[in-house]
């Protein structure tokens, strides 16, 4: 058949193409000895880039700072840090390839990522199997056997309790809450915790809803919630920008009560989108205004340099700056760049590390069977006539009882 004549020679050629490209591509992967590579596996393109890019920016800022300060000295030998970014596009297959490339081709020993809890379920075993230290940004709690897996940022189990602790301090008379969250793995986890916390605090949950992460028109869902007359609305993990819309539309529909952003807010965006009037009284845990609300000199300094370098402040960016500081601390303590050694150092009981929030240590064993979460003290803030003010700081100790309640322990 004429149909098949061209087919097979052609098949031959085109199936050989990948083989050849592959051999060429694998041919070039040199690793300079005195460089410690740090992998950044984040969604830096596509719809989730707004989440991944801050990680990349903060990490590179931290790495440049460390190198500028002469790198890390281990056993008399000086190492420089080098960042390698691979895109995950928030897609499990692409994330898997990204991690494999980082681990096997770039031979990195430390990875910042992934952002998504769902994807972590796939890549985390890979990091364990290859003894690669992983600093994970998702909100999924650690498991006792996740030896190489650390969380430099808050997880859902912490943020919700911290947030509601703050709320109870600010609004003791609160009786009913409406819980709104992002319809996505992290959102589900966060919502479960929030439910437990509210029950523990004796709050009545009048509404318990999920919305698409990219939903922009909240009018229908608000129409469902508002008639139930909640004393305040918790916005769970709805992203900055989107929760600004939620607030704006909520005000338009006549809701006067306070809003709560348990996973942090971005005041700049908030005021830009919702406006000062609508944003009045927004309570948030964690902040994006690292300069204005700096709790430590380092925080202010880094925040300023981040702003001048990238022309913007991103929510949850300096937490990723911390990740690099933790790695540095681990390497110095272990006096080795070998992850297997570094992880031992990081896991030594009572090990403290510097962070933009001051010294922190790994906590959480009593709840999740392993100390994997950095005990960053979280500032909780509120917006008053167009300005975000810090009302206080929630420390790990403050959170503990509520987490206990949340986890029903």
């Amino acid at each position, binding site marked *: 058949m004429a149909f098949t004549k061209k*087919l097979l020679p052609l098949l031959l050629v085109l199936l050989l193409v990948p083989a050849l490209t592959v051999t060429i591509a694998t041919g070039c992967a040199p690793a300079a000895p005195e460089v410690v590579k740090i992998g950044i596996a984040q969604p830096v393109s596509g719809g989730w880039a707004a989440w991944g890019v801050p990680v990349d920016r903060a990490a590179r800022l931290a790495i440049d700072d460390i190198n500028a300060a002469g790198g890390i000295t281990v056993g008399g030998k000086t190492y420089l840090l080098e960042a390698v970014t691979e895109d995950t596009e928030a897609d499990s297959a692409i994330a898997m390839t990204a991690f494999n490339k980082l681990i096997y081709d770039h031979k990195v020993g430390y990875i910042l990522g992934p952002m998504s809890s769902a994807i972590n379920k796939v890549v985390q075993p890979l990091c364990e199997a290859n003894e690669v230290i992983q600093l994970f940004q998702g909100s999924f709690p650690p498991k006792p056997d996740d030896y190489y897996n650390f969380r430099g940022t808050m997880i859902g189990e912490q943020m919700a309790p911290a947030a509601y602790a703050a709320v109870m301090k600010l609004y003791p008379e609160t009786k009913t809450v409406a819980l709104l969250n992002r319809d996505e793995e992290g959102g*589900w986890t966060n919502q479960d915790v929030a439910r437990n916390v509210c029950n523990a605090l004796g709050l009545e949950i009048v509404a318990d809803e999920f919305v698409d992460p990219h939903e922009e028109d909240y009018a229908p869902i608000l129409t469902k919630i508002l008639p139930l007359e909640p004393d305040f609305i918790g916005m769970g993990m709805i992203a900055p920008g989107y929760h600004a819309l939620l607030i704006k539309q909520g005000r338009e529909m006549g809701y006067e009560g306070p809003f709560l952003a348990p996973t942090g807010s971005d005041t700049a965006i908030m005021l830009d989108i919702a406006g000062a009037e609508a944003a009045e009284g927004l309570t948030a845990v964690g902040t994006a205004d690292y300069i204005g609300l700096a709790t430590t000199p380092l925080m202010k300094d880094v925040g300023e340099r981040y702003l001048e370098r990238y022309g913007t402040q991103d929510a949850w960016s300096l937490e990723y700056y911390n990740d690099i500081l933790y790695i540095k601390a681990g390497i110095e303590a272990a006096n080795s760049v070998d992850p297997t050694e570094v992880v031992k150092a990081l896991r030594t009981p009572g090990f403290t590390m510097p962070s933009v929030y001051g010294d922190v240590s790994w906590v959480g064993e009593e709840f999740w069977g392993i100390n994997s979460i950095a005990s960053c003290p979280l500032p909780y803030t509120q917006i008053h006539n167009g300005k975000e003010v810090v009302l206080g700081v929630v420390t790990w100790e403050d959170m503990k009882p509520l987490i206990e309640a949340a986890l029903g322990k």
Partner: protein
Amino acid sequence: MNRNDWIKWAGLAAVVITLFLIPAFIKSPYWMLVLTLMWVHIIAAESFRHIVTVGEYSFAHVPLMGMGGYASALLAMKLGLSFWLALPLAVLATAIISFLIYYPCLRTTGTFFFFASFAFGEVMRLCWVRFRYPFGGVGGLSHIPRPEAIHIPGLPTVEFTIVSHTSYYYLILVFMLFSLLIMYLLDRSRLGAIAAAIKESKVLASFVGIRVWRYEMIIFVIASAFAALGGSLYAHYMTLLVPVEFYWGLGIYVCVWAVVGGTGHFAGPIVGTIVFGLARELLRPFPQLVPLIYGLILAATLAFLPQGLISLPEKILPWAKKVLARVKER
């Protein structure tokens, strides 16, 4: 067998042998993974082309691929079946579901079919999102069991773990070659001829006594079965299924791979998948530009190669011959 046939079979043998030898000279697990995923995508794109042979474009194809994954994952997780049993059952189940989905769609043709299939596929996909039990909701299914190790007396056991990239490579390669073979034979068989006739003119086809509806359905169900095969392999390889990954995103990519490769030719979708797959990986240093490059490849192909990338050789061979001739003259 004439000379051409010999060349053909020699070529085919060479291809297959090369594919089996690749792990010998590519040590990077990363590239193993890339190629393995590419084989899965080839199954998807080729079975998509199988639908196109009757002249319809289905957007339920990728959701059905996901259905295959979900089916075998659930069979393995909830009923504790072995992968080797779950796979065929999942393929069967998806074939039945595809029948239910295409049954209403087949009342329509062309663009209407395109969107009707999208609608029903989307309803199915949203079921996974909506019902946390058993589908796991938006988070999807995770920790899907990996295939059981293969014990062949006298040979080392083939393990399937997160680091056993080579055994996965071979597993999926074998399944891909198998499904390509079957689809190729189908394409050349009487079924393929009938499909061609239906594509040309449904009316005339029915007036030479072809039961158009029945044959279209047969072809769609077969295609969906192969999609399910790919989906099941993917599920047990990734050990994770997320509904959003079977949204129009992948749906469009599969369509793009097939059309840009060239649906008129059996090897077209294979070309498309490989070209785009490699582009994706080679462009990793510039993630922001990936869509741009995709767009350019796509536009250039559609503009200059209406028959798809597959027709590139035909286009350049004459030109190359001319050049050769000129060289000879000197």
